[in-house]
């Protein structure tokens, strides 16, 4: 296996991009990543694109062809493009497939992208499309919404470990603060714990401000071999680990509802592959689709003991200048969560941080970063570890 590095990144603004189409956003993200890497269309060996539900959100399937075509890479170059789907973890999975293409020696330069256009349908339809990440036949049909499933994780976490609504809210408050410093973020305003607790109840105990929004956005990274990376950039970011784990699609089939087994296992596999432990990680982008999801993630990845995630967040231990900065980008809560794009956007953020170009939200001395991307309620978890040093 060959070592792999990121040599270029690109990302659109995330949000309700009513004036822009699905095609507009993936072209913008893709082109900016190629410009960042300083490469041409002729250099691209393949494209992997994460997209959860083009069929429901823009009534368009065959996303690989569309992206290659409107990126100007299909009609003469016939660049191969593959769509990758694992619900909200589609982006992370696209990155993993792209890494394999380089590591195996099959391609020398590959683009890993993610794109989702969710606001071209009504929120009703978007919510229903997202619910397809859970078990349609045995969770959805009885009236379990997606926030409802995470609310059940939160309820049991509170019951078992004494986690409070204020602690949940503090995840959102911290992420909103980080988001004020991120130009691509959908929401760039400070909030307080009261903002969260006074927002409307979605599924008890989760309020509207415990939930990530419906968003449009696209993101893209360019990969090549670690050996060749310095030809393109002075600051390559090296992939130290890629790990994927699956678990039961239904929440009710897990032995412990408050633990995402897929996250635990993907984390272990990633640490093993990189030869590192959680103590070696300087910053993490985790999948905070709901506030409780961030609390579970930082416990399941080994940064805090089970049950300590809420307290630690409330006490400020996951802030940008604290011992383990979590979601310096602002996370899914404030960047927005265009589902297919999220996993790639996490890699874009870690790349910016390890290059030292993350501006006001820069984590001092960041050397090693991690991303954590989840599909559904934890049926899929993808973890990557990145480093400034080879």
């Amino acid at each position: 296996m060959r070592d792999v590095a990121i040599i270029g990144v690109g990302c659109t603004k995330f949000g309700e991009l009513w004036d822009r189409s699905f095609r507009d956003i993936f072209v913008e993200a893709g082109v900016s990543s190629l410009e960042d890497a300083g490469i041409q269309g002729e250099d691209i060996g393949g494209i992997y694109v994460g997209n959860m539900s083009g069929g429901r959100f823009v009534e368009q399937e065959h996303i690989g062809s569309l992206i290659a075509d409107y990126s100007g890479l299909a009609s003469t170059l016939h660049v191969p493009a593959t769509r990758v789907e694992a619900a909200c973890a589609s982006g992370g999975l696209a990155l993993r497939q792209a890494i394999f293409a380089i590591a195996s020696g099959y391609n020398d330069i590959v683009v890993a992208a993610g794109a989702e256009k969710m606001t071209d349908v009504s929120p009703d339809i978007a919510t229903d499309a997202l619910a397809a990440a859970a078990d349609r036949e045995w969770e959805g049909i009885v009236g379990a919404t997606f926030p409802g499933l995470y609310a059940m994780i939160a309820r049991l976490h509170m019951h078992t470990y004494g986690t409070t609504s204020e602690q949940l809210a503090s995840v959102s408050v911290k992420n909103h603060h980080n988001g004020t410093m991120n130009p691509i973020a959908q929401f760039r305003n400070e909030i307080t714990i009261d903002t969260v607790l006074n927002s409307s109840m979605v599924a008890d105990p989760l309020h509207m401000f415990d939930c990530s929004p419906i968003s449009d956005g696209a993101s893209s990274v360019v990969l090549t071999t670690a050996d060749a990376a310095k030809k393109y950039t002075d600051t390559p970011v090296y992939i130290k680990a890629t790990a994927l784990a699956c678990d039961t699609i239904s929440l009710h089939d897990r032995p412990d509802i408050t633990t995402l087994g897929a996250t635990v296992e993907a984390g272990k596999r990633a640490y093993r592959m990189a030869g590192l432990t959680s103590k070696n990680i300087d910053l993490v982008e985790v999948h905070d689709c709901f506030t409780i999801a961030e609390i579970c993630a930082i416990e399941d990845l080994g940064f805090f003991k089970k049950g300590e995630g809420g307290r630690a967040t409330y006490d400020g231990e996951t802030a940008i200048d604290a011992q383990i900065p979590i979601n310096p980008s602002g996370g899914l809560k404030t960047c927005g969560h265009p589902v297919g794009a999220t996993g790639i956007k996490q890699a874009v953020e870690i790349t910016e941080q390890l290059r030292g170009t993350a501006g006001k939200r820069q984590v001092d001395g960041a050397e090693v970063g991690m991303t954590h991307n989840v599909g559904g309620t934890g049926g899929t978890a993808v973890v990557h570890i990145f480093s400034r040093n080879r």
Partner: protein
Amino acid sequence: MISMTVARFWRMIPNRYNLIGTQCTNCGQYYFPPRKICPTCRRDGKIEEYKFKGKGEVVTYTVIHTPAKGYDQQTPYNIAIIKLDEGTSLTGQVICDPKEIQIGMKVRSVFRKLGEESERGMIYYGTKFVPE
């Protein structure tokens, strides 16, 4: 209501109406929703139909205030993960005052209307739970 074609709903009617799942008689584990492969024994497993007794307890729950499509008439409603006495868990509605539901509460299954597609569309029936 999550819309399902007639065939998709109809083929699981015995399971949805009467809580019929499966049991692996090799290891003894029960499954609902039904599984044809036992995750413990895999191809050594011996899967047979099993009708659950319908008694269990609430593992965790939520009160839904922003409903799933078609459930607005019922809002707010309780959704819970229920561990059946046989040891397997499922997701279902618990019919009671949202203030009453709690973790550890004993419940039993009842046959109820889940919802309907439209005035002239399909009516979906299935299993819900009530406090024991």
